[in-house]
């Protein structure tokens, strides 16, 4: 069987197996085994991919598999990966694996919980391997829908409201996206040729510029909503705050990356002309996102809100870099997606664990946790340092690649915006240190905190997995960067065929 298809089959089989499990213990063991297998599989995929490339296979996509499943609209189940998707799949596996362990003690309807969670993961995997726009969209929806249940049933706080808001806004995005994708489909081939959803085929054709102008905003905003594009980001703070731990992890860690990945793979890649013409609008919006999210985070009191705003800022940087449309910035965007996925997942995992002990997420009610739970605190500090871009951890690699890449842009307007975006590193430091100071350091504010226990073994597995990944990317980024770079070549070539020019405000 095609290795990529396995990525969809394993979760589905796992979900089925969970359906037959008798109690919570069996459920979580099955889930952990399934997702562990998935993690191994993705490690193997990385290995297989690198071997293929080393053997001189220069095809744009590897491990392709094609099956027609809806003939009248020419919809295929077409899968294939390049370095970028491989990296994203790796990210997904790690986050899902950590997420399973982070939700080890979900007792209420645990079977249903894990099934939904794994269903969500299925959608994400499917999205990353698909090369057929329709199938991609299908998996996208598969990923979004379980979210509603997961937040609505297992969430906390105003969960119904948040779930509804999140789902509606993402569905709104899907609606825009559907328009964009259909438009692309109808212009996917030159006159007379059969229409196609195949991404690679479409990229060989040039969609008429007038149509691009019309379709690009739909597609970009449609994906951008998932990527927390200002001002469509408000689902994110509420949704994250209400979601249960693993869902926040998956959502911020992986699902939001679908937005960035899609915006890049579909919107920019297929419609480079319109992208260049309209980049300035979206650059302004994303640069706003970056700073706005960071400033917004300073003032929050709830840990999850802080992290949600921080995600807005970091994901804004992803879209910002994508819009710069040069190889280095794009590379940075991908690394940033991975890096942010890992560290935000780590953050949410930690917040969940801390919340499970202190029963509050308000930073002004906490303090001095370093003394009572050193392990969790140290990991929290590491996550914080990764988030504020400390060298040696993944955030630095990503941000620097983006900044250097974006600053190489020939246009002064773009460079100015880059400088504005770099200011976020200071603001990020401010809110991260504020949280670390208020949460972990200082005297213990509440006596019953003295009796709290440090991390249990499954929590250690969950966090250590993520920390190792963060540190590995941070210390030796070259292989990842190279893997992505090779795959960016054809895309950058396609982008350079665009005849439009960048619009500059200067």
């Amino acid at each position, binding site marked *: 069987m095609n290795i990529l298809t396995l990525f969809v089959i394993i979760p589905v089989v796992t979900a089925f197996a969970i359906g037959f499990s008798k109690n919570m213990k069996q459920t979580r063991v099955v889930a952990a085994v399934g997702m562990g297998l998935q993690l191994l599989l993705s490690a193997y995929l990385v290995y297989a991919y690198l071997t293929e490339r080393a053997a001189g296979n220069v095809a744009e996509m590897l491990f392709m598999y094609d099956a027609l499943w809806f003939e009248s609209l020419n919809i295929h189940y077409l899968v294939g990966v390049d370095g970028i998707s491989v990296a994203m799949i790796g990210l997904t596996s790690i986050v899902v694996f950590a997420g399973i362990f982070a939700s080890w003690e979900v007792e209420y309807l645990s079977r249903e919980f894990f099934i939904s969670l794994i269903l969500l993961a299925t959608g994400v995997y499917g999205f990353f391997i698909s090369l057929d726009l329709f199938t991609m969209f299908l998996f996208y929806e598969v990923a979004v829908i379980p979210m509603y249940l997961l937040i609505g049933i297992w969430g906390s706080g105003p969960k119904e409201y948040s779930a509804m*808001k999140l789902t*509606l*806004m993402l569905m709104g995005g899907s609606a825009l996206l559907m328009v964009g994708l259909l438009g692309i489909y109808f212009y996917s081939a030159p006159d007379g040729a059969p229409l196609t959803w195949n991404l690679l085929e479409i990229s060989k054709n040039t969609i008429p510029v007038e149509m691009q102008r019309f379709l690009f905003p739909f597609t970009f905003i449609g994906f951008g909503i998932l990527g927390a594009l*200002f*001002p*469509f*980001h*408000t*689902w994110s*703070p*509420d949704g994250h705050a209400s979601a249960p731990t693993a869902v926040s992890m998956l959502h911020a860690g992986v699902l939001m990356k679908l937005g960035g990945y899609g915006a890049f793979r579909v919107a920019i890649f297929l419609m480079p002309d319109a992208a260049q013409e309209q980049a300035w609008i979206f650059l302004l919006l994303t640069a706003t996102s970056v700073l*706005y999210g960071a*400033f*917004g985070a*300073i*003032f*929050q009191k709830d840990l999850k809100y802080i992290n949600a*705003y921080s995600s807005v800022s970091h994901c804004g940087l992803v879209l910002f870099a994508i819009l710069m449309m040069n*190889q*280095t910035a794009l590379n940075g965007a991908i690394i940033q997606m991975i890096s942010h996925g890992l560290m935000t997942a780590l953050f949410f995992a930690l917040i969940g664990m801390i919340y499970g002990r202190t029963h509050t997420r308000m930073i002004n009610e906490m303090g*001095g946790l*370093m*003394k009572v739970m050193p392990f969790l605190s140290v990991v929290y500090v590491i996550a914080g*340092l990764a988030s*504020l*871009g*400390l*060298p*040696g951890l993944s955030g*630095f*690699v990503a941000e*620097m*690649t983006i*900044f*250097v*890449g974006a*600053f*190489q842009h020939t246009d*002064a307007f773009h*460079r100015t915006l*880059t*400088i504005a975006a*770099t*200011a976020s*590193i*200071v603001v990020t*430091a*401010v809110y991260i*240190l*504020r949280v670390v*100071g208020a949460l972990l*350091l*200082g*005297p*213990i504010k509440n006596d019953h905190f003295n009796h709290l226990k440090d991390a249990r073994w499954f929590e250690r597995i969950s966090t250590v997995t993520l920390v190792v990944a963060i540190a590995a990317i941070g210390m030796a*980024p*070259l292989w990842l*960067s*190279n893997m992505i*770079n090779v795959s960016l070549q054809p895309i950058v070539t396609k982008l350079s065929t665009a005849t439009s020019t960048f619009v500059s405000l200067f």
Partner: protein
Amino acid sequence: MPMNAYSYTLLILLIPLFSFLLIGLTGHKYKPIISGLIGTAGLLIVAVLSYMTAIKYFWTDHVEGTAYTSFKAFETTWLHLTDNLTINLGVLLDPISVMMLVVVSTVSLMVHIYSLGYMKGEKGFARFFAFLSLFSFSMLGLVLATNIFQMYIFWELVGVSSFLLIGFYYDKPSAVSASKKAFIVTRFADLGFLIGILMLSFTTQTFDFQTLVSSDGPALTHTGGAVFMGLSAMTWALTFIFIGGAGKSAMFPLHIWLPDAMEGPTPVSALIHAATMVVAGVYLVARLFPIYSIVAPDALTIVAWVGGLSSLFAAIIACTQNDIKRVLAYSTMSQIGYMMLALGVSGYGGHDGLGFMAGNFHLFTHAMFKALLFLGAGAIIHSVHSNDMREMGNLRKYLPITHITFLIGCITIAGIPPLSGFFSKDEILVAALHHNIYLFAIEFLVAGLTAFYMFRLYFNVFWGKERHYHHTPHESPLVMTIPLMVLAFGAIFAGFLPFSELVTSDGLPFEAHINYAVAVPSVLIALVGITVAFLMYRRTSAAPDKVASALGGFYRGAYHKFYIDEVYLFVTHKIIFRYISQPVAWFDRHIVDGTMNLIGNTIEKSSYLIKGFQSGKVQQYGYVFISGTILLVIIFVYLW
């Protein structure tokens, strides 16, 4: 010169990293003292390797009369950015990096040894040594950086290790906020550094130091380019980079974190906030000195004035502080101002580069005597458990070794010959005199002030009236006094190093002489400062208060550090928090989110409006169905 002969310098980086990881991951498993010994042993090896390198570089491998070359002992690609720009990690050896290697490893080793005694019994003993190793690794990496981006990487790392060490007593709120402040202020400066790097790399398409400073490289041959507000792109880039350096080196107005950083354990202050990390800014400017000097003289002028003003500013404040560590902190700031000024007034090449040589020379001697002073202060604090000099007095009889070594430090910093401070300071004054008479005047004044406030401290602590101590102060153990003696030795004799033959702006040695026209007055003013201090503080008297009240507002201003902290507090809390962050948060909740909710509510409302159609009443449905059918029939039959 074969490259391989120096490849072992890589170990200088790897050993502290290894001991950091070892102590950090396994330190809680064994006795704390073992962690300390691991860290110290690692540093000992590093120090030996550094001395070996220095001897080999400066003397063994050097052919008399030729320029010192700079070469990479090791280099590997860390991250590939664009075709031209790659971030490499490596080891660059040239006169200043080798000199810094000696400084960092010496001071760090001394501090490690000292800490074995000073931190004994502390709860986070292993953690402390882990962080020290991390710091040593980062600082050495910074010093040996082959390119500006590697420097930035380690720049951030020293920042974070400084943060961790300042906040070592993490349950003390003041330490937590001091560490936060240090990190954020330097982070803000680092933003300038980063922007500078971006601009520089955009213009020159390289990060590499050797390429940047080579005479036919893209930086030095760069002409024209975009001009913004009357300054060229290179000037802007270098000014931004200097902001980074100024932040790390606590130059006015980014100095506010340094006095607060004294919340950290005293050995940390000696290592990070006196001898090594804070001079990183000086080192950075020295690194890029050819570019500053040739392409962006305007930026260099800024460096000179910022350095000069900072040194004066800090010296004035130092005269009024009572916390001995804060006095030393302001003194550090003042001395770094000297170094900056020295670089700022320097020219490039030959004797013109006197300032460059003097700045580095002062960096070297300052590291010795300031580390000595801090460690001495640590010994004092260790024995009386207070930072406040008003609670001390007549300590000379309890702490004889500390007393002598501290006195040596004070004389050195005051610039009395033949101790090392005299030589380096004298050359800075000469360079300043050649360049700008006002800057010279400032520095001349500062020389007097320095002598005054150091001896004020000295007399207050070691002489004066005996205070009531909780328990009799006692001399520190050998493990703490030996580093003091070693550093005192360094402070005395470092001045005799032929620095002008080793570290020069273009690598070529030149002859430097003592300029008596400058040296004699500067020694005199130092003596005046000492005398004044002697008169005022030898015995506890009312004289200081009289002087203070005579100076009135000026004294109060200096005592309150000229209210710079308050200005920052105002800017951050009032402006950024209240007028940016809070409105952003409000805007997000109410306007952006409100719009989304409004859309949701509108849809809900309109659905209420049309809900009547879905009444669930069969007859209503029937009615609508039938009328609809009739209408359709009419339409299709008659109107179509």
